[in-house]
């Protein structure tokens, strides 16, 4: 946020640099079951983001002392490929990805029936192959599909979506330029059925009214993304039927 520039992010017709309306999502494509070895997997293209997620587990938690006798431990690992951004990112976890892994783990755990799998871990690996802003919310969206693909029982498919502010206008789903030069970003994860909020972060500068407008936008878009998730899951399982 907040890098200064003379770039105009919204033109005279009220359109954004990629031609979108303020409340319009970038194109999203999802595919379920893209990896052979993982218990569940999914792939998402969201604007310029390309992210793959894999789930392993529930499997015995190791080392043993981390086991929780009452429930499964949900461990998400958010990781960016070194070549996923313009300037090469040093491989391995940095402070940002440690924080994101933590909040994503907590958000995913909120929908998983962890008490059904005591002493286990459910490992969720999120690999960002190409980044274009909004990777954490796209990562949650695709991780949720991978969990469903792995047959993990969940309350609902959790959806990630962000809104923010650019050139003083509240907009949905910021892209890279908007994220760099905009004034605020509000990443959220929403449980579509109950409309509960499982992840919420914000950085920038927004009035109360602007923030509410942004959260309204993300809550609404979550329903649309949720429909795409269901479609992606159905697609995989109808394809399997056809093969048989």
């Amino acid at each position: 946020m907040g890098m200064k520039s003379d770039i105009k992010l919204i033109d005279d017709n009220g359109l954004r640099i990629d031609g979108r309306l303020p409340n319009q999502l970038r194109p999203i494509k999802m595919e379920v079951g893209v990896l052979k070895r993982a218990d569940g997997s999914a792939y998402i293209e969201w604007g310029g983001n390309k992210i793959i997620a894999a789930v392993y587990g529930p499997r015995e938690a190791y080392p043993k002392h981390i086991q929780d006798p009452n429930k499964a431990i949900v461990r998400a690992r958010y990781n960016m490929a070194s070549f996923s951004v313009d300037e090469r990112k040093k491989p391995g976890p940095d402070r940002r990805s440690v924080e994101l892994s933590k909040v994503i783990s907590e958000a995913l755990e909120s929908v998983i029936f962890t008490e059904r799998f005591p002493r286990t871990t459910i490992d969720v690996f999120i690999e960002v192959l190409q980044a274009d802003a909004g990777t954490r919310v796209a990562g949650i969206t695709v991780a949720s599909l991978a969990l469903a693909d792995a047959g993990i029982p969940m309350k609902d498919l959790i959806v990630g979506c962000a809104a923010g502010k650019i050139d003083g206008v509240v907009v949905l789903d910021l892209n890279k330029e908007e994220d760099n030069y905009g004034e605020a970003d509000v990443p959220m994860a929403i449980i579509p059925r109950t409309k509960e909020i499982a992840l919420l972060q914000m950085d920038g500068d927004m009035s109360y009214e602007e923030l509410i407008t942004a959260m309204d936008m993300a809550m609404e878009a979550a329903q649309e993304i949720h429909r795409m998730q269901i479609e992606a899951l159905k697609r995989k399982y109808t394809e399997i039927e056809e093969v048989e």
Partner: protein
Amino acid sequence: MGATKFTEGVVPEMKRDYIHKLASKGTRIDGRHFDEIRPLKITKGFASRAEGSALVELGNTKVLVGVKVEIGTPFPDTPNSGILTTNAELVPLASPTFEPGPPGEEAIELARVVDRGIREGHAIDLEKLVIEEGEKVWIVFIDIHVLDYDGNLFDASGIGALAALTDAVVPASKHDLGDDFKLPIQHYPVPVTFAKIGNWIVADPNLDEESIASARLTVTTNENGYINAMQKGLNGTFTYDEVKKAINMSIDIGRKIRSIIMGDSDGKEN
């Protein structure tokens, strides 16, 4: 990840029931209202070797924040700006659940949430910290030293960071760069953290409350009532109404905390 967990203290089931029962009657284990923070005491200039410092006592939680200001090279993409960097250490003397070693995810999240508030709230006028464009700038190090952990490190640390910054002096004379000057502060972002206990939202949770909370939300607001940063934590959820309520409360509570940081404890804004 280490075993350093904020919420690992075991609160007996009885205490959980007791806290819930109290909440249903509109009160809390230490008698506070839901929107009431613990007594807050700030001692600026506690560590005199630091360029700025503040010891924060929020109830029994104690955090010492030190600010060091040194010379360094600016980042290539921001040649006209000083640098801010924030670190947190959960030293083992502060809690039986804290272990020595490199910062775990809890300490990293704490440092990043404090940093986000100060950075996105533009607390420091970083453009005034350029010595030679693209070559030499002042680097402001905020170091958070947790001394006694009785809940809500986010607010104690965020308050300490802002207080230490307002106390900080840039040591220009030491480097033959003219007279020392006060670190240029332009905004006053203050974090306020809420915990969800049952279906109740309480401000500034103590350790007992934190250990039974299902979800946590930190909202950082500035003197104009604008929101600069938010961070939700833990594996529970908030309803949208709860989030709105917390944001609203954070603006009011933040205002009170700000006047204490500014040393105007009558509650007047300056």
